[in-house]
């Protein structure tokens, strides 16, 4: 599966107005908006541009046990080297995909708005910090982001923040197993509701409706699930230039402005991309890394780091799950996405317990093909095992907020270098007791629901074996005070006049909702602020 044209022209674009670093959803949306306004935009992407014709072959990789998650989107162990030094291991290359489209290439595609209280955690819950903006500030951008990504959803969630218009597409209908859960949840007075999906429930924006490949994570072969190639291609059609396989090595700068992004190309050359404005959109790990790599005599601790907070407050969502089996068919693994959740307990959060949401799985237990490829049997024995072990599983998940903590950070590990000789990112991930305590509460609720359902519980992910949901947040936090934050509410760095950050790295707190819709909304907000300045 060759990725991109090795001989492509990767020389800098002359007279660029804006240089966007990173071709994920944030970079793609900003580039599209700025190109739409007539500006000369260039996008520098460290990874390759993948051929959409290879999607089915990548899907086969996703099914076959020979390939782990990083191999599916061609992770390169030297390019993507990293360190994990925190109290909990962080599997960074399972958590991201590098290339045009970014991690939306392998994401689940769940797109909720943060709740109003998430923007005021310190004031309302007594912990964390307040965002410098409120839900109402972001609300129009949420609506715009839902239109841009294409969100299928319904107005049936009594716990969701207020919205102004229906979702662009109707929600996916509930699954058969949702109906089993609904009966149990009714008995416990727990409300279920639909899931907003960035996945076409009907044809939308030139892309087809979902056809049910069932492999959403890590590959959607049909293109029904949104990924950021949509906006990167759209930006190109409006005149933007995309330079792939061009990892930015450092940002050349003066005291007040960035002058050029120095990037490497596959032929071993280094180039300087100059622009009037720069947008860093590299996610919660590579964004602080690039700033730290761009240290200078003026910024000895890293670019845009007068606060000393670049890299600090690394957050993810914690996963909590419980599953088991019923003595009846549950019809799992027909599709790879969720159709029901419960946000009922979300706004009970306080200083002691974090916000969390509950998920009802449609893919609990192993799929038959997955079992077949990993067993020690074949023929009639295998078929008997598949019939015995497939079909009666149920499972629930949950996401839990972790608070921003100074001892949870992304730094540089100078003892290890990447394929260009740069220190690798050190993901030093620590979680905190509030999140772990909340995981126990999530597990208790999940156990009650599964008990009511009559399930025999066979697995649980709790405080001891929890892991990240692969949502990197917090490492260049947003705030009003330049001594306590890296960017202002306009997403521009406090230190540099021509540098904006569009990324989950600006989240002051994480809430417990999947972050991409908020990333997209903030990217659109950043684009508006950039347009005001250009």
């Amino acid at each position, binding site marked *: 599966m060759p990725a991109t044209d090795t001989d492509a022209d990767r020389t800098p674009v002359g007279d660029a107005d804006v240089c966007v670093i990173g071709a994920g959803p944030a970079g793609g949306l900003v580039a599209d908006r700025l190109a739409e306004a007539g500006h000369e935009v260039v996008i520098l992407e460290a990874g390759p541009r993948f051929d959409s014709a290879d999607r089915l072959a990548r899907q086969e990789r996703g099914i076959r046990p020979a390939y782990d998650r990083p191999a599916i989107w061609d992770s390169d162990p030297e390019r993507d080297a990293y360190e994990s030094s925190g109290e909990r291991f962080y599997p960074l290359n399972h958590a991201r995909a590098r290339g045009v489209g970014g991690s939306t290439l392998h994401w689940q595609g769940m797109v909720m708005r943060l709740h109003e209280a998430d923007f005021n955690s310190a004031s309302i819950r007594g912990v964390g910090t307040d965002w410098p903006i409120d839900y109402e500030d972001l609300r129009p951008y949420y609506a715009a982001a839902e239109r841009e990504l294409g969100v299928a959803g319904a107005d049936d969630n009594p716990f969701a923040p207020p919205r102004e218009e229906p979702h662009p597409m109707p929600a996916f209908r509930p699954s058969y197993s949702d109906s089993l859960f609904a009966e149990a949840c009714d008995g416990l007075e727990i409300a279920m509701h639909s899931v907003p999906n960035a996945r076409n429930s009907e044809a939308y924006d030139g892309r087809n409706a979902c056809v*049910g490949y*069932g*492999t959403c994570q890590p590959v959607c072969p049909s293109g029904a699930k949104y990924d950021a190639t949509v906006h990167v291609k759209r930006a190109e059609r409006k005149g933007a230039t995309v330079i792939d396989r061009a990892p930015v090595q450092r940002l050349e700068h003066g005291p007040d402005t960035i002058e050029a992004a120095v990037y490497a190309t596959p032929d071993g050359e280094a180039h300087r991309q100059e622009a009037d404005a720069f947008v860093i959109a590299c996610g919660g790990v590579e964004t602080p890394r690039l700033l730290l790599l761009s240290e200078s005599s003026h910024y000895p601790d890293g670019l845009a780091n007068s606060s000393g907070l670049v890299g600090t407050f690394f957050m993810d969502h914690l996963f909590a799950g419980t599953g088991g089996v019923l003595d009846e068919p549950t019809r799992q693994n*027909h*599709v790879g996405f969720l159709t029901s959740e419960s946000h009922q307990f979300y706004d009970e959060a306080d200083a002691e317990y974090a916000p969390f949401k509950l998920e009802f799985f449609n893919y609990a237990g192993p799929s038959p093909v997955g079992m*077949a490829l990993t067993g020690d049997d074949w023929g*009639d024995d295998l078929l008997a095992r*598949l*019939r015995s072990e497939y079909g009666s599983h149920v499972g629930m998940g949950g996401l839990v907020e972790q608070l921003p903590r100074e001892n949870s950070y992304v730094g540089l590990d100078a003892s290890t270098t990447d394929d260009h000789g740069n220190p690798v990112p050190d993901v030093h991930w620590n979680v905190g007791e509030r999140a772990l305590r909340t995981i126990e509460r999530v597990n208790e609720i999940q156990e009650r629901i599964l008990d009511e359902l009559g399930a025999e519980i066979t697995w649980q992910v709790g405080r001891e074996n929890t892991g990240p949901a692969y949502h990197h947040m917090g490492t260049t936090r947003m705030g009003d005070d330049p001594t306590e934050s890296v960017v202002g509410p306009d997403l521009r760095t406090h230190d540099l006049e021509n540098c904006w950050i569009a990324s989950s790295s600006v989240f002051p707190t994480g809430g417990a909702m999947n972050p991409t819709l908020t990333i997209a909304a903030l990217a659109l907000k950043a684009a508006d602020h950039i347009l005001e300045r250009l």
Partner: protein
Amino acid sequence: MKLTRRDAVAALAALGVGGTLSGCVAPPGSEPVDVDRLRETLVAAADVIYPSEVSGTATFVETFLEGRLEDPTHVAGLDEAVTELDDNAMFWHDERFAALSVTDREQVLRNIDVDTADEDPTGTTSERVRYYVVNDLLLALYASPAGGELVGIENPQGHPGGLASYQRGPSA
């Protein structure tokens, strides 16, 4: 259950390879390989790997192989795995794998630990036979609607079977 060419085409479509209903094609751009030997070996292996309640495996496997032949890299790996499988069959039974009884074929696969091996396209003999022969046959069957039906899932992972089946109950 009788497997058909159309079942194999459905399996191929999910894997992004070929899947035409035309005749056999030679692998483009690769070293010449004995396609008949590959076909005979996979059909013979399917007699071991597939459950006894399916029939029509020869047509199913041959059609699936037609699609795989469009990928020279896969063909080279398959050819190498089949050669090693035949070498083992010759060593123990003085016959090529495809010429053995079903019982002896299974014994050859077990002799080289294919049953317990993890698949790996660049691994040991057992890992490569597992990848190119055993697991490719299992993938063809159980990622297709025909194989899914055997287990009770009309839309198995990897098949674009639409949005109706996940909503249906077991008695629908």
